[in-house]
């Protein structure tokens, strides 16, 4: 019999392969993020001081919104073509299998954000001391975004137009991440310690990534109705 780990890997590989063949789906949220970040200097004025001050907030809020955009493709296609019900019918635990899909989502939405962060920092005139903190907060925080987002996506599977509802139920849950991440970046810019915030972010991510699959599995089974 196939063990859970083998199944996990093949789900991940399959999802990445499908994403590779539909590149625009993965790219659009990133382009959206880039454009939102561009809009702020245009709306507020290009003064470097004020931009640097609000940069962490802007980048993180834009990252939250970009995550929401990409959630649609997380389970919906698999739900519509019947793959998801096949995953429910496997002897391997569903909660664990679903983490493979979350991992694929993170590799396609969270990781590119981390890679893109120097560019964003540059655009918003973030001091050099702060951009590595920004990259670290994104690296530590985005797994939690993907995992929480997956709960929202799974809960709204049955609904035809779940998009705005997903934002409604998820954004309040994102708030702690936003608070600790932006504060870490701010502190780093002022040359203060950031270990505390980063530790909390890591703790939130670990907690979310371990607990969220249970809620996801319950939501997916509920959607089989």
């Amino acid at each position: 019999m196939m063990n859970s780990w083998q199944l996990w890997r093949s789900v991940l590989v399959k999802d990445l392969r499908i994403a590779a063949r539909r590149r625009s789906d993965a790219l659009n949220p990133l382009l959206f993020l880039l454009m939102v970040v561009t809009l702020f200097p245009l709306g507020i004025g290009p003064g470097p001081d004020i931009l640097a001050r609000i940069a962490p907030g802007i980048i993180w809020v834009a990252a939250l919104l970009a995550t929401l955009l990409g959630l649609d493709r997380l389970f919906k296609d698999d739900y519509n073509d019947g793959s998801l019900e096949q995953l429910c019918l496997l002897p391997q635990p569903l909660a664990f299998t679903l983490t493979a899909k979350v991992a694929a989502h993170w590799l396609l939405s969270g990781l590119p954000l981390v890679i893109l962060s120097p560019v964003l920092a540059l655009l918003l005139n973030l001091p050099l001391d702060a951009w590595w903190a920004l990259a670290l907060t994104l690296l530590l925080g985005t797994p939690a975004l993907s995992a929480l987002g997956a709960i929202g996506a799974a809960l709204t599977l049955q609904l035809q137009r779940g998009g705005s509802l997903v934002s409604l139920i998820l954004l309040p849950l994102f708030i702690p991440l936003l608070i600790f991440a932006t504060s870490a970046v701010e502190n780093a810019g002022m040359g203060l310690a950031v270990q505390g915030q980063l530790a909390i972010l890591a703790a939130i991510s670990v907690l979310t990534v371990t607990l969220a699959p249970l809620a996801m599995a319950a939501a997916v089974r509920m959607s089989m109705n």
Partner: protein
Amino acid sequence: MTQSTNTAMPLLHADRVSSIRSGRVLFSQLQLAVQAGEIWQISGANGAGKSTLLRMLAGLLVPNEGEVRFNGQPLHRVRDDYHQQLLYIGHKAAVKPELSALENVFWQRRLGGDTTATAEQAQDWDVLEQLGLLGLEEEMTGRLSAGQQRRVALTRLWCSTASLWILDEPFTSLDVDGIALLQQRFLQHLSRGGSIVMTSHQPLTDTQLPLQQLTLNSARAEVLL
């Protein structure tokens, strides 16, 4: 509405199951006992609850009343064992349009629990050849015709080791040859002691199949809301 009181313990037993969907009683107190080596055709008008019954048998839906038993044990208690023995192909056939036919076959085999799987295997080619898909194996499945896509989905019947097949409208969009091929495969499966529960609007043409019928009678359905 009730049939078959065999003395031997049935492989799969739906014991007085009822379904209430969006305020209507689709069926109630329904009895179905499937023995090893039997093939059952569930028939009934549109909306009579055929797919619902199959999903209940597969364990995707919990009956509103009654219970489904596998080897005498309630499904939720023997879920993993049951799912190893089960192959369910629903209305939506879990074929990924972004993957090639060969990749889909590989993925289907993985879902079937095959561990030895590497990307390309001789047996995959055999199966594709039998189903008349040779020469299309590198084509994206989304670009194939509906009947060809169905054939890709049905390759699972050739790869799986499951003893119980639950098939929702397997003949949909297949041509005459395809239907004949599938019925041959049914005979093979039955001769090995396997069992099949299926729905179909078409009458099965192969007279050798020891077909048993269960008709869902929607005229008796109660309107609740």
